[in-house]
C-alpha cells in the first residue's frame, strides 16, 4: 500500500501542477500576441513586422469624448497599418500612477505610458526608463504643433521625454446669475473677493465650491495666492535653490490670505470629504457662485445645467501684490515611450501620427480648449460657447506663472504640503507654524 500511495501521490501532485499550468496556458494563449512587455518578442519573431504596441492611457470611460477620440484614431491607424496592433490599457488616473510605479520598479514599462510634467516625471527619466523623443518630434514637424515653451516642462538635459495632451491655466469660474442675485460684482482684488464671499454668504448663497478630499485642489488655489504674494513666479524654485525658505514672509502672507478666505466661509461644509467631482458638481448645478479650477473644467461646465450663465475671471491681486496675468500653469499629463520598448521605431511612428492628428480631432469633438497644441480653426464658427471663447481669450493674456506644487517639489515634500494645506480647511493655524511644517518637511525630504 505504501508503494501504491507513493505513486498515487506523485500522480496527484503532477495533476495539480498540470491543472495549474493548464489554466495558465489558456490565459497565455490569449495574451501571446499581446503582451508586448512579456512575451511579445516571441510573437514578433514569427513575422518580422507583426507588432503589438501596448498603449497605457488614462481615458477609460467609454462615454468620455477623449476615449472616443482615442479609439477612433487607434482603429484608423490599425486599418492603415494591418501589421500593427494597438493594445489599449485604459486605467483611471490613480490606478495608472500606481501601476506605472509598480511596473517601473520591475522595468516593465509599457510601450506607451502616461507621465506628469517636471518633478513628477523626473524619477522616471533619471532611472532611464523613458526614451528621448527628439527624433520623433522632428518627424513630420510634430514639434511645431506644440505651443511655444510647453515641451520644456517635459525636457531634461536638452532631451524631451514626453508629449502632453493638454495645457491649462487656473481661472475663477463664476455664476453670473448668482452674482446678480447676491448683488456683487466681479472682484478686482483679493480683498474684494473676500467681501464678495461674505456678501454672498449673508444672502444664503454658497460662495465657492472645492473638492478638497483630493488635496491637490486646495493646493492649486493656494499656490495661485502664493504666486501673488510673492509678487511673481518662482517661489518654490528659490526654495529649491536655497535662496529662500518656506518661512519667507511671502509664504506666510499667502497662508494668512488663504485662511482669510476659508474663515470668511467661502467653502461648503464638509469640504474635505468632497472629492473633485462632488465639489465641481456644486458649481455645475448652480449651487455655488465661484469655482477656482484649471481650464480643463470648461468642457464639463459647458455640458452642465449652468451653461450660458458662467463667466471667468483672473485670480486678483493680494494686498496689491502680483500680476493677474500670471497664472497657475498646468501642463497636462503626457505620453511617454518606454526606453526598453521592443518596438521603439513602430511605437514612435504611431505616437507621432497620433499626436499630429490629436488637435484636429479634439477640435471637432469640442474638446480643444486647453489642449497642448496649436489649433487652426475658428472656434466661434465651430460652435464653441461664449464661456469657452472667454477662456481662450484669457490664454492670450498669459505672461508666465508657476506650476503646481507637486510638479515642482519632490513627491515626499508634496505629500506633506498637501496634508498641511488640507488641514487649514478644518482648523485655523498660525501661518508661522504652517511655514515651519513646510520647511521641516522640505528639509527632511531633500537631504
Amino acid at each position, binding site marked *: 500500500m505504501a508503494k501504491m500511495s507513493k505513486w498515487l501521490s506523485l500522480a496527484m501532485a503532477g495533476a495539480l501542477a498540470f491543472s495549474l499550468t493548464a489554466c495558465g496556458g489558456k490565459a497565455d494563449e490569449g495574451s501571446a500576441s499581446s503582451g508586448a512587455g512579456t512575451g511579445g518578442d516571441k510573437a514578433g519573431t514569427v513575422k518580422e513586422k507583426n507588432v503589438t504596441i501596448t498603449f497605457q492611457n488614462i481615458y477609460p470611460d467609454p462615454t468620455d469624448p477623449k476615449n472616443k477620440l482615442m479609439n477612433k484614431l487607434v482603429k484608423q491607424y490599425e486599418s492603415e497599418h494591418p501589421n500593427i496592433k494597438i493594445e489599449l490599457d485604459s486605467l483611471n488616473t490613480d490606478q495608472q500612477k500606481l501601476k506605472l510605479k509598480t511596473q517601473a520598479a520591475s522595468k516593465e514599462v509599457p510601450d506607451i505610458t502616461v507621465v506628469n510634467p517636471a518633478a513628477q516625471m523626473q524619477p522616471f527619466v533619471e532611472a532611464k526608463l523613458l526614451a528621448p523623443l527628439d527624433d520623433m518630434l522632428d518627424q513630420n514637424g510634430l514639434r511645431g504643433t506644440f505651443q511655444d515653451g510647453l515641451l520644456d516642462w517635459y525636457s531634461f538635459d536638452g532631451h524631451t521625454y514626453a508629449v502632453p495632451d493638454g495645457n491649462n491655466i487656473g481661472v475663477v469660474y463664476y455664476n453670473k446669475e448668482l452674482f446678480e442675485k447676491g448683488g456683487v460684482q466681479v472682484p478686482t482684488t483679493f480683498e474684494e473677493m473676500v467681501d464678495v464671499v461674505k456678501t454672498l454668504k449673508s444672502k444664503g448663497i454658497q460662495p465657492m465650491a472645492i473638492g478638497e478630499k483630493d488635496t491637490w485642489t486646495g493646493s492649486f488655489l493656494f499656490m495661485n495666492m502664493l504666486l501673488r504674494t510673492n509678487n511673481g513666479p518662482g517661489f518654490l524654485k528659490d526654495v529649491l535653490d536655497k535662496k529662500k525658505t518656506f518661512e519667507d514672509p511671502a509664504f506666510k502672507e499667502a497662508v494668512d490670505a488663504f485662511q482669510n478666505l476659508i474663515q470668511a466661509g467661502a467653502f461648503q461644509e464638509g469640504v474635505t*470629504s468632497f472629492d473633485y467631482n462632488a465639489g465641481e458638481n456644486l458649481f455645475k448645478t448652480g449651487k455655488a457662485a465661484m469655482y477656482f479650477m484649471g481650464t480643463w473644467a470648461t468642457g464639463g461646465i459647458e455640458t452642465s445645467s449652468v451653461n450660458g450663465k458662467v463667466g471667468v475671471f483672473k485670480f486678483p491681486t493680494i494686498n496689491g501684490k502680483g500680476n493677474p496675468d500670471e497664472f497657475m500653469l498646468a501642463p497636462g499629463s503626457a505620453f511617454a515611450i518606454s526606453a526598453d520598448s521592443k518596438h521603439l521605431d513602430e511605437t514612435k511612428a504611431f505616437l507621432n501620427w497620433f499626436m499630429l492628428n490629436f488637435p484636429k480631432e479634439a477640435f471637432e469633438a469640442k474638446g480643444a480648449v486647453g489642449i497642448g497644441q496649436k489649433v487652426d480653426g475658428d472656434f466661434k464658427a465651430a460652435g464653441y460657447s461664449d464661456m469657452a471663447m472667454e477662456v481662450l481669450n484669457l490664454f492670450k493674456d498669459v505672461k508666465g506663472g508657476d506650476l503646481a506644487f507637486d510638479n515642482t517639489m519632490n513627491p515626499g515634500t508634496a505629500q506633506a504640503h498637501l496634508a498641511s494645506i488640507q488641514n487649514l480647511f478644518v482648523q485655523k493655524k498660525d501661518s508661522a507654524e504652517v511655514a515651519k511644517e513646510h520647511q521641516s518637511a522640505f528639509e527632511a525630504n531633500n537631504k
Partner: protein
Amino acid sequence: MNVLKVSRWTIAAFVLPCLILYAGIVFVPILVSMYSGLLEWNGIGESRFIGFENFKNLFFHDPVFWPSVRRTLLFAVFSMAEIPIALLVAILLKRYIRRPNFLVSSYFLPVILSVVVVGQLWKTIYNPASMGGMLNQVLEAVGLGSWTHEWLTDPSVAMYSLYFVALWQYLGYHTLIQYTGILNVPEEIYEAARIDGADGFAADRYITFPNIIPIFKISIVLAFIGSLQAFDMVMVMTGGGPAHATDVISTHMYNMSFLSMKYGYGSSIAACLVVLCLAATFLINLIFNKLEKRFS
C-alpha cells in the same frame, strides 16, 4: 492525537503543493518587502542600504505612524466588539423566527456589495445637512440639532464614523457565522437543559456560549484581518484625511510607498504590519486555548 502513519512521500504530496505556492507567493514577497524596509529607495531608481534608519524615523519622527497604529487597533477592537452583537442577533433569529434563512441572507447582502457602493452610500448619509446629508437632516428634524456633526471631516469624529460603517457592513457576515454555529449545537442538549430548568438566556449562557467558542475564534480572526485590511473603505470615504486624521496603517503605507515615492520607508511600515499580525495571531491563539480548556 493524530493517528495516521503515512510515508514521507504521501505527506509531501499532501502538503507540498499548497506549501510551495504559499511560500512562493506570500512568504517570499513578504521577506523581500521586509528587506526593502532597510533601503532608501523611491521604487524606481537606485536604492541605498541604510540599515534601520527607516525604522528609527518611523518610530521616533513620524507624526502619522503611531496614531495610525492606534486607529488600526481601535478598528480591530470595535470589529471584535461587534461579534457579541452578531451572536445576540443570531440567538434571536434562532429563537423567534421560524424560517430565518432569508433574514440571514438579507443581513449578509452588504458584504457582497463593493466598497465603492458602500462608501458612496454612507457619504450621502454623513454629508452636512446643507448638502443633503440624511443623518444630520434627521437629527435636526427631531430637534437634536446640537448633535449634528461634520461626520467625515471633523477630525475628532471622522474615524468613528468610519468604524461604524465597517460595523454595519460586517454585521451580517458575523451573524451568518454565529448563526450556523448555533444551529450546530445539538438540540438534545437544550432539551436536557430545559428539564434541568435552564431556559432562554440561561441556556445560552451555559450551552450556546461554550459550544461556539471555536466559532468565536474564527469570527475574531476574521474581524482582525478585516480591520487590518480596511484600506479600500478609508480611501473611498476620506482618503485618510483631513490631514491624516483618518489614516490607518495600510493607507499610510500606500501613501508613503506610492504617493510620496518612499518605497523603502513604506516597506518598513509593511514590516511593522507583519509583526503586528504575528503578535495578534499568537495572542488570539493563546486566549482561545485558555478559553477552550476552561470550558471543556
